[in-house]
C-alpha cells in the first residue's frame, strides 16, 4: 500500500503505466478480518437464508399441491358430470323412443278408427244411394205406368165404337164360353 507522503511526492509525475502486483501483507490487506467477517456471515446467514428459502419452497410446494388437488377434484367432478350427462342422454333417448312409439301407436289407432268410421259412412251412403235410386225408379215406373194406362184409356175411349164394342163383347163371350165348355 502506498502512503500519503508518496502520493504527495509523486503528485507531479504520476506513472500512467505501472505494474500490477500482489500485496502479500496479510495485515495490510485486512485478510484475517475479512475471513472472519465472511465466516460469520456464512455461519449465521446460511441458517437464515436456508430457513427463508425452505419456507418459500414449502409455500410453492403447498401451492402446487393445493392446485393439484383442486385440479384432481375438478377432474373428478367433471367425470361425474360427464357420467350423469351420459345417463341423462340415455334416458332422454329412451323417452324419445317411447314417445315415438306411443305416437306411432296413437296414429295407427286413429287411422284405424277413422277408416272404420269412414267405411261405415261409405256403407250408409251406399245404402242411402240405393234406396234413393230404388225410390226414384219406383216413382218413374209409377209415372210411366200411369201414363200408359191413361194413354190406353184415352185410346180405348176414342177408338171404342159400337161395332168394336160388340165384337169385343162377342170375343169375350166366346172366351168365357170356351172356359165353361172345358169345365
Amino acid at each position, binding site marked *: *500500500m*502506498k*502512503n*500519503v*507522503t508518496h*502520493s504527495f511526492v509523486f503528485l507531479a509525475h*504520476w*506513472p*500512467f*503505466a*505501472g*505494474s*500490477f*502486483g*500482489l*500485496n502479500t501483507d496479510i*495485515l*495490510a*490487506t*485486512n*485478510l*484475517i*478480518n*475479512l475471513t*472472519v*467477517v*465472511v465466516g*460469520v*456471515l456464512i455461519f449465521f446467514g446460511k441458517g437464515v*437464508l436456508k430457513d*427463508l*428459502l425452505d419456507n*418459500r*419452497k414449502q409455500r*410453492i*410446494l403447498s401451492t*402446487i399441491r393445493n392446485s393439484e388437488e383442486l385440479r384432481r377434484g375438478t377432474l373428478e367432478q367433471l367425470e361425474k358430470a360427464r357420467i350423469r350427462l351420459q345417463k341423462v342422454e340415455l334416458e332422454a333417448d329412451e323417452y324419445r323412443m317411447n314417445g315415438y312409439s306411443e305416437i306411432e301407436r296413437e296414429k295407427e289407432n286413429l287411422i284405424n278408427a277413422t277408416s272404420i268410421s269412414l267405411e261405415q259412412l261409405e256403407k250408409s251412403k251406399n245404402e242411402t244411394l240405393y234406396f234413393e235410386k230404388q225410390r226414384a225408379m219406383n216413382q218413374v215406373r209409377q209415372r210411366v205406368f200411369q201414363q200408359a194406362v191413361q194413354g190406353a184409356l184415352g185410346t180405348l175411349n176414342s177408338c171404342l165404337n159400337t161395332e168394336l164394342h160388340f165384337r169385343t163383347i162377342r170375343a169375350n163371350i166366346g172366351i168365357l164360353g170356351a172356359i165353361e165348355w172345358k169345365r
Partner: protein
Amino acid sequence: MNITPCSIKTLKGLYDISGVEVGQHFYWQIGGFQIHAQVLITSWVVITILLGSVIIAVRNPQTIPTDGQNFFEYVLEFIRDLSKTQIGEEYGPWVPFIGTMFLFIFVSNWSGALLPWKIIELPHGELAAPTNDINTTVALALLTSAAYFYAGLSKKGLSYFEKYIKPTPILLPINILEDFTKPLSLSFRLFGNILADELVVVVLVSLVPLVVPIPVMFLGLFTSGIQALIFATLAAAYIGESMEGHH
C-alpha cells in the same frame, strides 16, 4: 523538503503501518478522457459476478425451484414487491430498471466490504467498491433522473410539466430545483456512505489491524445493504411520483 532522511525513514515506517489513501486513482486514457480504471475493473467484476450467478442459477429452470433458482426467485420477488409498493399498479416495465439498480449497487457495496480487493496492487490507487467513486453514483443517479423523466413523459405527454406549477405556480422554482437535487442527493448519499464505510474500516485497520475493525465491517455491510435498498426505493418512488395523478 526540509525533513532529515532519518525522520523520513521513521515517518515511512510509521506510514507503512498506517497509510490511508484518498483520492488516488488509476487512470486510463480512452479517447481523450481520463478513466478511473479501478472503478471499471471492479465494476466488471461485479457485473461478472451478477451475470455469472444468474446464468448458473437459471440455466435449468424447474417448476419446483432448486436452491439457486429459489434464491434468485426470492430476490426477484423482493424487487417486484419493492417496485410495486413504490410505483403502484403499472410497476411491470420498471422492475428490470429497479432490479438492475438494486442488484448492482448491492453487489458493488458488498464486494467492497467482503472481497479482499487489496490483494491486487495497482500501479496507482487501489481497488474498492465501484460505488466508492462519485462518478459511478452520479451515473446511476442521472440514469434514475432520465428514467423518471421518461416515465412521466411517456405516460402523460407534455402535460407532465403541469406538475411544476402544482399546487401553485409560486412553487415553480422549487419544483425545478427538485429535479437537480434529486440526482444530487441520490449520488452523494450513496457515495458518501460507501466511502465513509470503507474509510472507517481502512483507518481502523491501519490503527489496529485485528479484531477491532470487525464490528465496523459488519456495520459497513448493514449500511451498504440499506444504501442499496434506499437507492432502489427512491428511484422507484421518483418514477412512481412522475407517473401518478393520471388516469
